[in-house]
């Protein structure tokens, strides 16, 4: 995914209502009316959010069924989540290595102290 697409996805995810809509859709398909209900939104209000999510490729709306259910497109969300994962992997591993080196330094300090005491 290009950084432009990733930005579009992250911009869509920046809104708490849209994240709540995605969380609802992760349980299964839902109609626009069903999605509007728990958020106390008007139909045009929820439609606006759905359009942003659709443009970001995070959801699709079926044209076949009469109630036109919305569906989560988890592939795009996975890409956004992968990005977060990359950054975390880099630093998780860095801090793991840093911790090892620090323990080495502490052990060395302790043994140096021991040597000094032995000389006194």
């Amino acid at each position: 995914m290009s950084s432009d697409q990733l930005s579009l996805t992250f911009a869509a995810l920046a809104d708490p209502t849209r994240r709540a809509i995605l969380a609802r859709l992760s349980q299964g398909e839902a109609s626009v009316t069903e999605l509007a209900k728990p958020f106390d939104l008007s139909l045009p209000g929820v439609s606006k959010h759905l359009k942003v999510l659709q443009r970001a490729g995070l959801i699709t709306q079926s044209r076949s069924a009469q109630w036109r259910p919305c569906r989560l497109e988890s592939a795009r969300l996975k890409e956004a989540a992968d990005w977060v994962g990359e950054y975390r992997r880099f630093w998780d591993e860095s801090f793991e290595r840093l911790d090892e080196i620090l323990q080495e330094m502490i052990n060395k300090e302790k043994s140096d102290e021991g040597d000094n005491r032995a000389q006194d």
Partner: protein
Amino acid sequence: MKETTVPKTEYVIEPGRQELTSTTILDAPRELVFKAYTDPELFARWWGPRRYENKILKYDSRTGGEWHVVQKGEDGSEYGFRGVNHEVLAPERICQTFEYLGVPGHVALQTATFEPLGNKTRIVAHIVFQSVMDRDGMVASGMQEGADESMERLAELLAK
């Protein structure tokens, strides 16, 4: 001998923002943590994933000093990073610019703060990019590799 535990790092990476914060607690006094950050030989031994070897081209850990590190992969791939230390305040803070040379010109500002917790140290690392696109795009291009555990991340992303 003390048991070794893998440090647990907490990340705050909010969608649509141009910053990141990570917090981790390490079992060492902050003077040592500060030394591991500022000594080039020590820094080269921990920064980044193990599969990369760090080549230190410049590492002047004084206020105003430059740093330039190249991460070299086993396949010969190279990723360069450089910046300038805006402020190095022993043993509590390092504030520096950060640029991934694969995408030059997109400079971020990162600050590492070391807080003493008895014999432990809390490291708070904050990085602010010039734009949301920089944050999302630059870091991804500099740190690529396939991911498996991403549905877990997805859950975390949605829980925010």
